[in-house]
């Protein structure tokens, strides 16, 4: 029971209080580029939830069974407890993410062609989305265990989904407003994001 409450509070914290986009600024590029239409932003958001929920636990396993100091002990080869491959973290993570995106793309194409069609072009884009790499790096820095890593990965994705859909709906309304010329596009999107971020900060009082 305690474990469930702990995981639930981790999820709420990651989705609302420490939102990967609004508090840590990760994934801004695709956030600004894709949020012009509500449908496409839902597609990208779902793809991020999906890929993030898979890559964070996979990268957890890679860190703990391959890269960390002494992680290779399970091979039983003498001297392995001294081996520290930590410096390879970045390059291995980015390769895993690219490979996982490719794999998810193939599985989706086979299992659910309709979902594949709707996510279509967004899947490859995700390989260079900093929210995905950022969640994996946060997972290492905060020393989660495997279950926590899975919950963290999924809820970080959900946080991204909520933020991007919110901005897309606001930009939709914005079409009918008279924005000063220099502020159109990026400028007003940044100001709006600031306001959304302020609203999300009011969640910080929640304590489960």
């Amino acid at each position, binding site marked *: 029971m305690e474990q469930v409450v702990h995981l639930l509070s981790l999820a709420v914290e990651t989705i609302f209080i420490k939102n990967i986009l609004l508090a840590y600024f990760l994934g801004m590029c695709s956030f600004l580029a894709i949020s012009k239409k509500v449908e496409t932003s839902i597609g990208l958001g779902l793809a991020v939830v999906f890929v993030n929920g898979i890559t964070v636990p996979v990268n957890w396993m890679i860190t703990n069974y391959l890269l960390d100091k002494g992680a290779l002990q399970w091979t039983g080869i003498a001297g392995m407890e001294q081996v520290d491959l930590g410096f390879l973290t970045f*390059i291995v993570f980015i390769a895993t993410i*690219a490979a996982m995106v490719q794999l998810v793309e193939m599985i989706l194409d086979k299992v659910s062609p309709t979902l594949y069609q709707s996510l279509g072009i967004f899947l490859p884009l995700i390989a260079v989305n900093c929210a995905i790499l950022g969640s994996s790096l946060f997972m290492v820095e905060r020393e989660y265990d495997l279950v926590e890593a899975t919950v963290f990965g999924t809820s970080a994705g959900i946080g991204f989904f909520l933020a991007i859909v919110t901005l897309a709906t606001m930009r939709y309304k914005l079409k009918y407003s008279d924005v000063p010329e220099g502020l159109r596009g990026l*400028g007003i999107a940044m100001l709006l994001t*600031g306001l959304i971020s302020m609203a999300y900060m009011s969640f910080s009082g929640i304590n489960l």
Partner: protein
Amino acid sequence: MAIKKAFDTFAGPLAKSNPITTQVLGICSALAVTVKMDTALVMSAALIFVLVGSNTIVSALRNLIPSRVRIIVMLTIIATLVICIDQILKAFLFDISKQLSIFVGLIITNCIVLGRAEAFALKNTIGESALDGLGNGIGYGLILLLVAAARELLGSGTMLGIQIVPRFLYVDQGGWYVNNGFMLLAPGAFIILGLLVWVQRTITGYTEE
């Protein structure tokens, strides 16, 4: 003529086609590391190193890279350079590298690096690509420093750690001034950058849509 072209390659990204405010690339790190000026400075230096390095290497190899696998080749080159700079920062500037935490690693997915490699270095000579990298790196650094200066001055009353707002003005010293803590939080960063984009676009006359 050649000198003028080289100068344009270098100076264009400083103001007119600035990577952050006009090309909308690399915004994540521009917001995250700008609470204080010293982290912003180190981050800009790291990005300039990676950008010049990756542009030069990609341009040198541009006739050898098959176009179908170019993304993964470029990512490998960039990741290698980022590992180098990360190890250097950990060895010589440990405190700042702790504050930058994951954002040095995130230079890999910083769209400026991949974007310039794809859009410029694959089609141009080594010298021009290096210049383009330097120009874009400095353009990025300029915006970073402006945002960081505004946030540090308004949020902590200091610049590069030196007290700028006189001590006797503060409330606890009998004055009336209070630091604006809002600037240190995430929304402050979004709003400062939004206003900066407005100013820059009004001056250069660039509009979207």
